[in-house]
């Protein structure tokens, strides 16, 4: 039997696991990342699943990655580059299209085609959302204080929190009205929220997309406005709310992180699924791999989602009952599908002219919020949506590395697709039928789309779960609803990256501040571990 000893062992080489690993290695610790696959990256990967094409086959666009982490980990030096979006569009059934551009005046005119009032309201909406982003930004970096605790650090945490809102100059002196706005934004449905600004359906549905991506909520569900915020709080080069492509696909992010980690003498053990966390006297001390090898470490960090960690690799007997039950009841629902399509040519859209920058960002075909909510109704009944919300993009237009010359790669994210079908579970046949349906829906908006499909990879939540290990294929490692945010994430009382087992930590998106290729959970976890080890490092983030 092979035995080795480390300061820290991290289970899973997703972007958060690697982020934690980098910070800990930077502090001089001996760190090993243990990864199931023969490649790292988790859900941020680029894979050649069809010869000549590189697919960002899970996550596909980038905005949330905290710039401080980018800087601390020197990701640029390790090969990462982000290309900003040029625009985005929704295609209408009547042959028109609705678009947002980098150019503010152009966007105004584009919206004004549908409603002058909405074009004007878009600025006010943008300002109000931006204010909320400013409010939430420092919270992302915060280890959520436990409101039930009397420990000085938690009381101080709550006090800091209150002080932040009460401060006169912070955030430009938030008043009572603005605080209520924040409560409203965090609890309302995105539809109600958008109705307060806009009259035109296409404007509302185009903006509402961000509120339902990856979540088991519909646009009418209270709490969906927060998900919109979650997708807006990112930035590209200081432009808050902007999105971009990672050059070379999303795998470039984790590849750069892995390279940064190795440069700090970190060790990555690939092709090594972990079957068990070794625990004695309520303390973790090592891992057992599938091949029987054991790895010992003072601290164990799990990048797996909270359900996978505590229902699969930790034995039930090691856990307090309440905690076990809470983990079992953790809401982590598969609601998204993905198509990765190799195209022999560039799609010609019926509405968007070739070369229009609006066609190079995210594209949508949902016509109004009712249609979007209807898609959610299907999901609630255990069916994939007949009129699904799709978020398509063709990164190869701006990124020459992803497809052979003259050919293109298209990523299609689909909401809603259930993890379990009501009519007896997924079969190969149903999966193909689902993929065909989505492609035919897209085909309706193009003159050549059906003829240029060279290869399509069709992924339901089942495939996401099987490949990435995300329970039920939930892209956020857990729903982003009020009951699972901040000090409730993942489980009330365990929101500070620690677990009931001593020396066992969590660093995945199941923890605060949640999903997206953000890196904040990983960096926050690293900060907590370093605190427990009484180690200090000086970085931009920590």
């Amino acid at each position, binding site marked *: 039997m092979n035995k080795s000893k480390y300061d820290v062992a991290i289970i899973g080489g997703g972007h958060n696991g690697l982020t934690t690993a980098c910070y800990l290695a930077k502090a001089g610790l001996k760190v090993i990342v243990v990864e199931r696959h023969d490649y790292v990256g988790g859900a941020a990967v680029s894979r050649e699943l069809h010869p000549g094409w590189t697919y960002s086959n899970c996550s596909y666009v980038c905005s949330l990655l905290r710039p401080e982490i980018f800087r601390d980990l020197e990701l640029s030096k390790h090969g990462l580059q982000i290309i900003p979006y040029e625009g985005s569009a929704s295609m209408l059934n009547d042959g028109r299209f609705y678009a947002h551009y980098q*150019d503010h*005046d152009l966007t105004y005119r584009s919206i*004004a085609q549908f409603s002058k009032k909405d074009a004007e*309201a878009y600025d006010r909406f943008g*300002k109000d959302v931006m*204010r909320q982003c400013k409010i939430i930004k420092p919270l992302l970096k915060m280890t959520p204080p436990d409101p039930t605790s009397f420990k000085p650090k938690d009381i101080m945490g709550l006090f800091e929190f209150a002080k932040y809102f009460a401060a006169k100059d912070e955030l*430009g002196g938030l008043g009572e009205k603005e605080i209520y706005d924040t409560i409203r934004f965090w609890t309302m449905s995105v539809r109600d929220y958008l109705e307060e600004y806009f009259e035109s359906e296409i404007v509302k549905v185009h903006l509402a997309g961000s509120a339902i991506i990856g979540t088991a909520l519909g646009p009418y569900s209270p709490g969906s406005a927060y998900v919109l915020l979650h997708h807006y709080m990112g930035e590209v080069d200081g432009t808050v709310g902007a999105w971009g492509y990672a050059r070379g696909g999303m795998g470039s992010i984790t590849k750069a992180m892995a390279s940064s980690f190795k440069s700090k003498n970190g060790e990555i053990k690939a092709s090594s699924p972990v079957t068990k966390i070794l625990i004695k006297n309520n303390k973790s001390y090592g891992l057992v791999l599938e091949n029987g090898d054991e790895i010992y470490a003072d601290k164990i960090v799990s990048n797996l989602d909270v359900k996978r960690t505590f229902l699969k690799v930790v034995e039930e007997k090691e856990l307090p009952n309440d905690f076990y039950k809470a983990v079992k009841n953790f809401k982590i629902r598969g609601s998204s599908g993905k198509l990765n399509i190799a195209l022999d040519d560039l799609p010609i859209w019926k509405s968007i002219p070739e070369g229009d920058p609006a066609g190079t960002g995210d594209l949508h075909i949902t016509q109004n919020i009712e249609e979007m909510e209807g898609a959610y109704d299907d999901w609630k009944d255990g069916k994939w949506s007949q009129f699904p919300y799709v978020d398509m993009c063709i990164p190869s237009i701006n990124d020459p590395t992803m497809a052979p010359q003259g050919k293109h790669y298209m990523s299609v994210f689909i909401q809603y697709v259930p993890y379990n079908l009501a009519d007896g579970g997924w079969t190969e046949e149903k999966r193909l039928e689902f993929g065909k349906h989505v492609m035919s829906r897209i085909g309706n908006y193009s003159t050549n789309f059906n003829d240029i499909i060279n290869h399509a990879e069709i992924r339901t939540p089942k495939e996401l779960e099987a490949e990435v290990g995300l329970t039920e294929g939930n892209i956020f490692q857990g729903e982003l609803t009020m009951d699972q945010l901040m000090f409730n994430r993942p489980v009330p009382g365990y929101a500070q990256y620690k677990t009931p087992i001593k020396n066992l930590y969590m660093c995945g998106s199941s923890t605060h501040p949640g999903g997206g290729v953000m890196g904040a959970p990983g960096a926050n976890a690293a900060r907590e571990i370093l605190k427990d080890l009484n180690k200090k490092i000086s970085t931009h983030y920590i």
Partner: protein
Amino acid sequence: MNTEKISYKKPLLETPFHERTFEHCFANDWYRWAGYKVAKEYSSTELEYTSMRNTAGVIDITPMHKYEIKGKDAKSFINKLITKDITKIQSNQVAYGIWCNEDGMVIDDGTIFCLNENHYRIFCAERNLNWFCDTATGFNVTIEDISQSIAALAFQGPLSCKILNLLKVENIENLKPFHFNDFNLEKHNVTISRTGFSGDLGYEIWCDPSQAIDVWDSLFKFNRDYKVLAAGMNALEMVRIEAGFIQPNVDFMSAEQALRPNRMRNPYELGLGWLVNLEKEYFTGKQALIRHKENGPEKKLVGLDVEGDKPAVGSVLYDNIKKNQAKEIGIVTAAMWSPVLKSNIAIGFVNKEHYNLGSNVYAEIYHPEELDYRKIWAECKVVKKQFFNNPRKNAIPALT
């Protein structure tokens, strides 16, 4: 529905004068104004500025937002919207007004043209359609954005009346300041108002976009004897600072657009208290403005007479220049060297202890000298914002 075809290749609109502005714009230096392309500098900012102070300058102000208010409640609607009393304004009169939000913070300013008591037009710098429509709740009025259906030129300078006179615009010299009327300008019937932002004699000409080129050409007709220049945005910025006019989102953030609540400003802080009529029964922000007036402004937008000749652009203001003791007490929002006054002027916010006329404050100026920035401490005296105010501006009959 707007059927205008848009293309990403042309993000900006062209005004009806574009054919001419394009010809005149030798510098090919353009500026974005409300989605339009207008000249920043035609050939020389200094000469363009001089034309407005010496002869007359022509500025394409088509991008201004224009709203038509019609209906039997039009007057009461406007009276709810703006802080001053509109009932005193008769037909063919123009009022300058501001509107505030419920917290008494200024959203925008504009000129309000009274066609009759059921029909007004508002011209302003920012987009206000939503604010106007929401304000109109409960009033019997229609509000229409007519920005694209009116072309507009500012014709400013001491010879502006004379030239209009030469163009046989009948009785123009007797048009009183802040009044307007319809006139025949050569081939076309146009609306001319005696308004402007130069602090000097000047007019604004409003016409149908189809008449635009003819109107432009008319104004340049006597160019051989009386040199009229097309003036760009840079020159406009100079005359408006000299005249002491403030601009939303330059001198202060519009309350509808400010991201940080403490960036919003009330009329008393902007020195526009004279536009607020607290006797008036009701208007948006009245209750808050009563409180603001009572408390007095914490800071105020004032004019600054700056020592030396280095413009105090973006300068921070201090109460003294003693090392480690200087306290920040304000900020400059606009500054320039005034060629006509031969002084160094600025507009800026100064806090309570220092905003009274005659106070002394100090500006920290970073002045570029051959690629090196030199830090200059300049003493500034608080003065009235209206640096330039020529009596011919209000003379009747106007100078011909």
